[in-house]
């Protein structure tokens, strides 16, 4: 068993310049994937989180390395924010042996346990009880680790959400359920799919504190998560956070976006983009210049392009790899 050492408290105030950099990394990582996809170089599927970078960075990047995240199909932001190696993520997406999952997982399953990324999931809602289990394990082993479980708004209608919240509550587990309410589950708007105003109200039925926040404001997200982490680490039990945000792109590659208006999307893109909002704040406080931002963006674009170029040279798995990892090695 890996020895876990934990700093007692997470950093409470996030380094906003560092956060901006990570948010741009996430966005450009995904824009690069889109280009690869359009060029026919990327096999499989993917779900972009462009527009949701603040929930990823304000959440996962606040944790200690030894803390865990549990992610979803819309996972790239969470994985990068938790410190998953970006090169390996590209490699996974491009079907290389050097990928996070050696090519076996693809876009929806990126995992990196060494940095506390317990993995992404193709089954909506499956992460809720898994996160409870990881939190139980931390509690039983007395490690003081906490678990941050990401999920979408649509996922809260699965039975697994309700069952996991109840468990987390009765056992007072160190888990934070973080709902990225990007308004839609595929084509279904959340208003049509639930009959309550705030998803965070659902915490009440299970004796869990629920809170709804502006998910595109980095400092609101990081402050809220910070408090929940502190509470969980000190034995205060679970928290349910609902963060309001928006995905700029379609659900996945086949989405014709017939269920929402261009106008709605434009509103969010122009007036409520988490990156633009953070930049505006930093510019106002003279923490960065416009030129500085452009340079940052440019250097990340270059960094991503270089990574992709080098990943393309990596080996693919061979036929023999098909049969590896079906079962774990036996314990001696």
């Amino acid at each position, binding site marked *: 068993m890996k020895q876990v050492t934990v700093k007692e408290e997470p950093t409470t105030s996030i380094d906003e310049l560092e956060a901006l950099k990570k948010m741009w990394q996430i966005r450009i990582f995904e824009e690069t994937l889109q280009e690869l996809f359009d060029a026919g170089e990327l096999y499989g599927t993917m779900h972009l989180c462009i527009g949701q970078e603040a929930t990823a960075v304000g959440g996962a990047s606040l944790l200690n390395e030894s803390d865990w995240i549990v992610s979803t199909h819309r996972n790239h932001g969470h994985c990068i924010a938790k410190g998953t190696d970006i090169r390996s993520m590209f490699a996974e997406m491009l*079907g290389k042996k050097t990928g996070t999952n050696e090519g*076996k997982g693809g876009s929806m399953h990126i995992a990196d346990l060494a940095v506390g990324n317990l993995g992404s999931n193709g089954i909506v809602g499956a992460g809720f009880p898994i996160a409870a289990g990881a939190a139980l394990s931390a509690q039983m082993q007395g490690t003081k680790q906490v678990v941050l479980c990401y999920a979408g708004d649509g996922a809260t209608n699965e039975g697994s959400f309700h069952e996991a919240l109840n468990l987390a509550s009765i056992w007072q587990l160190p888990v934070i359920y973080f709902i990225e309410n990007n308004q839609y589950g595929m084509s279904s708007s959340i208003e049509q799919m639930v009959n309550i105003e705030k998803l965070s109200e659902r915490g009440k039925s299970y004796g869990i504190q629920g809170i709804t926040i502006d998910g595109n404001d980095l400092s609101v997200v990081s402050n809220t998560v910070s408090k929940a982490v502190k509470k969980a680490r000190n034995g205060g039990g679970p928290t349910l956070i609902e963060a309001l945000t928006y995905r700029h792109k379609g659900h996945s590659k086949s989405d014709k976006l017939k269920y929402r208006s261009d106008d709605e999307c434009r509103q969010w893109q122009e007036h409520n983009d988490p990156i633009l909002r953070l930049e505006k704040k930093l510019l106002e406080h003279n923490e960065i210049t416009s030129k500085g931002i452009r340079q940052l963006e440019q250097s990340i674009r270059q960094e991503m392009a270089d990574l992709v170029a080098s990943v393309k040279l990596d080996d693919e798995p061979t036929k023999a790899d098909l049969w590896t990892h079906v079962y774990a090695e036996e314990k001696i």
Partner: protein
Amino acid sequence: MRTVTYLQAINEALDEALAQDEQVFLLGEDIGVYGGGFGATSGLQEKYGKQRVRDTPISESAIAGAAVGAAMTGMRPIMELQFSDFITVAMDQLVNQAAKIHYMYGGKANVPLVMRTAAGSGTGAAAQHSQSLENWMAHIPGLKVIQPTTPYDAKGLLHAAIKDNNPVMFYEHKLLYQTEGVVPAESYTIPIGVADVKRVGNDVTIIATGIMVSKSLAAAEIVKEKGISVEVIDPRTLVPLDEETLLTSVEKTNRVIIATEAVKNSGFSGELVSIIAESKISLKLKAPIVRLGGEFVPMPAQKTLEAHAIPQIDSLVQAVEQLMKEVDN
């Protein structure tokens, strides 16, 4: 004759059933404006309204359970599970409820529901979106299981499934959606439980399910050059199974290959082997039965690994040639 895609054939059957029978309605995730996970319900909500083409929350257990309840009380629900893998989330309702009720209640209730779903690999969507779990369902008494492989079969069998008074699991293969075939414009049914001889031959019988049918037909063309004549049988419905058609073919050729995309281990292909082995025809076999199926691994995401995980045309060709050789020796 008119040619349409497998996807259109399914869409047409749904459209016609909605028009023909007021009790028929559709429910599932994103089946309205989005048109369903793969487009099978495209345009139907516009035509029949939100009541009869009903978007649901992401709640497979609730979808299946609601279908059971509605079916028991006079409606004929057709539920869509976006990917067949999500059946796991709806399993109690389908296996313990839908499949059992008619029997358990001494025949006093029927559960006429159809569960439509997209199965199979070939899209790089990895282990949780690429499984062929149809043989799970074939293991459950009380359920009927259909796996159509052509647009013609898809339309006719879907009509039959909708008219059937039992819970019917209807497995569509994602890679077949865009395949084309001749399909009558009017509504018709194909009886459930009748296999189809997709190609007539004398030397080897390939019993293939799902996507393996088209691969077997391609392999049959290739070995034809070498003078080998392959018969391809498509059971079309796993439950009830048309044993007679299968056995008649085996009796003619005396050489059998069974090909499924689903993993071989503990699967439906084993059932087919048993049926042959238990019949007297087995005494006349000129060589042991050959089984091709998915490797016993979760489906990998990576493209070439994914292709290695299930039988391809090459492996079918090799199997046929090997089978002929063994007999010659």
